[in-house]
């Protein structure tokens, strides 16, 4: 029994369990500390999703890329480009909202394909390719428009701001009126993405080959997997998800400007790492990344509820957490390494 538990603990799910526990701990701590400010309301929890929907989608895509052993730092710029393109198409060209969204998603896919081709067929390091992609997308944002564009398209605004009331978890306010917690459509999109990705990664051939390629490219090749094709698919998928994240992000901000979503990619990577994804590839889970994002959201909520701390403390706390998790990961990896050594000795 203990041995079984030990096996479980030193396996990779341990990292995710710690992340989830940490999130719960922080959240319960918040509920106790900010009791008079109603931290425990359902809406506060849902706001985590509402304000971070784009990041959740981007972090999920990033997780897939990291599992495949690559990295994509162009995500933030692609998000900015998507927002700007959406705003420009709808406001300056009068294209209807649905077409604009479809065009944007296609642009994301093409972008991902080009990056994937450069990475897998020309064998250039992913970091450099996506670095160039990052410059390119950020520059294209400025080429489309240097000024900020605010979206006034009615269909799009309806998508963005139609509240969906939940049937449960309502609270009664001071006047005795029942207020139902609500979410926006963007939350539904991000949850759907998570569910689909979770099953794809766990139960499809494509998902398993991503793990195999990330774990050891050479072995995957020898096993007969098409490494190049898998890698291209991963980057295409991530290009699509980045564009989708941009769309979701745009639902929140309803506008496009050049400096938007700066540092988004690093937040996504941080969320994935906190969620137990190894940057060497082969290990990770999209659910972990979700909790990584939620932890970041909780810290931000803390800071707004607290009121006197400045926004830069978010960065510092995130970095401290990142540090803790990274050290934990390395300790765990060392444990695993020792175990393997023992087996070899036997």
């Amino acid at each position, binding site marked *: 029994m203990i041995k079984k538990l030990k096996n479980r603990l030193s396996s990779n799910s341990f990292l995710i369990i710690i992340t989830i526990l940490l999130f719960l701990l922080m959240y319960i701590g918040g509920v106790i500390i900010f009791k008079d400010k109603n931290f425990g309301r359902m809406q506060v929890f849902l706001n985590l999703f509402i304000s971070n929907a784009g990041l959740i989608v981007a972090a999920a895509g990033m997780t897939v890329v990291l599992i495949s052993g690559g990295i994509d730092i162009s995500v933030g710029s692609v998000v900015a480009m998507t927002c700007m393109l959406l705003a420009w198409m709808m406001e300056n060209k009068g294209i209807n909202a649905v077409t604009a969204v479809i065009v944007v998603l296609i642009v994301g896919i093409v972008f991902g394909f080009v990056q994937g081709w450069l990475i897998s067929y020309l064998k250039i390091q992913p970091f450099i390719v996506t670095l160039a992609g990052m410059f390119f997308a950020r520059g294209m944002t400025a080429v489309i428009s240097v000024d900020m564009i605010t979206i006034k398209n009615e269909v799009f605004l309806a998508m963005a701001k139609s509240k969906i009331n939940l049937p449960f978890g309502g609270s009664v306010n001071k006047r005795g009126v029942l207020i139902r917690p609500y979410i926006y459509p963007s939350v539904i999109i991000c949850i759907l993405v998570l569910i689909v990705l979770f099953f794809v990664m766990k139960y499809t051939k494509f998902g398993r080959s991503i793990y195999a390629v990330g774990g050891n490219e050479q072995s995957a090749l020898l096993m007969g997997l098409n490494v190049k094709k898998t890698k291209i698919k991963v980057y295409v998928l991530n290009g699509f998800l980045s564009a989708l994240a941009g769309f979701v992000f745009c639902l929140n901000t309803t506008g496009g400007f050049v400096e938007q979503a700066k540092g988004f990619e690093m937040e996504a990577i941080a969320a994935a790492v906190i969620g137990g994804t190894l940057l060497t590839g082969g290990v990770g889970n999209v659910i972990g990344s979700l909790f990584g994002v939620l932890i970041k959201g909780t810290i931000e909520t803390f800071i707004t509820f607290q009121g006197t701390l400045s926004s830069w403390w978010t960065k510092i706390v995130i970095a401290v957490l*990142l540090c803790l998790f990274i050290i934990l990961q390395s300790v765990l990896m060392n444990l695993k390494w020792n175990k393997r050594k023992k087996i070899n000795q036997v």
Partner: protein
Amino acid sequence: MNKIKHIWMKITGFSLFFPLLCLAVVLVINLIRTPDFFRISMNNGVLYGYVIDILNRSSELIILATGMTLVVAASGGTDISVGAVSAVAGAVCIYSLIGGASSDVYRIPYVLALVLGILAGTACGVFNGFLVAKLHIQPMVATLILFTAGRGIAQVLTQGFILYVRKESFKYLGNFLPGIPVPTPIFIAALVVILTILLLKRTSLGLYIQSVGVNRIASRLVGLNSSLIIFLVYVFSGFCAGIAGMIITSRVYSIDANNAGLNIELDAILAVAIGGNSLGGGKFTLIGSVIGAITIQALTTSLYAMKVTADQLPVYKAIVVVIIVAIQSPVVKRWMKAVRHKNALSGNRKKVKA
């Protein structure tokens, strides 16, 4: 004929050939578009001109690229925290100099503040090095911590304000020393590069770094202290970031924790890649990285000269970078070799027929 071919092969085989070619192409395009590109004039006792400007503005990048090259060579990873670290160093320097508000009164001697700033950068390097060398964390993840926290720490010092130092002597480091027509940053960059090269060539440190980069475990078995070397390399990168931070702050005689050295880490990594260094570690050329840094700055300056706005600049930069890196990629190189080989074969056949 054969001799020419032989010389040509020798030139193209030279490791700095591609980086130099890239720089030459950028410069020639410039020369065509702006005929007085290479003109240098004296104005108010200082030198002016595109070339001086490129060298001047690329100094920080050269210094950072020097540290980055060693990091890449020894650990096969990148230090993405250098931009944030130089912001920290700048903030420490200015905070210790004038305190938390803009002023023109020094609290401590200027030199001491510079030393403190560089020490702050070095301390960040020690932190990165400890994580990478002792805890065996992937370089990018380890430096991601300071990348995220660095600007936060700098902002804690500046309290989110832009601090100005309104004193003439503070501008010397990033602009001109009185009576000397060449910008000071060029001297500093040259000094850093020359001292580093001397250090690497005169001692066996350069060889050790290559060896560790090629195979960390094998180097350890041979008797090198791999961890120590990787640790030192990161400390050096932090040290370089500290110096670069001093130049950046002195150039604008202020510290803006949010924007000082923003995205410069990406340029530094690009400089290393354009310089022909493999990002996988191992063999490296410092001079290549220096040429890479100058190429990037030349590209930036010439795009500005062609009236491209600062926001649109990245598009062109990205396209050029992709082309340069694609040419140097192993697949394209192998393909070119195959073509060359084929040519040589057909040449031989012609000879046989004749």
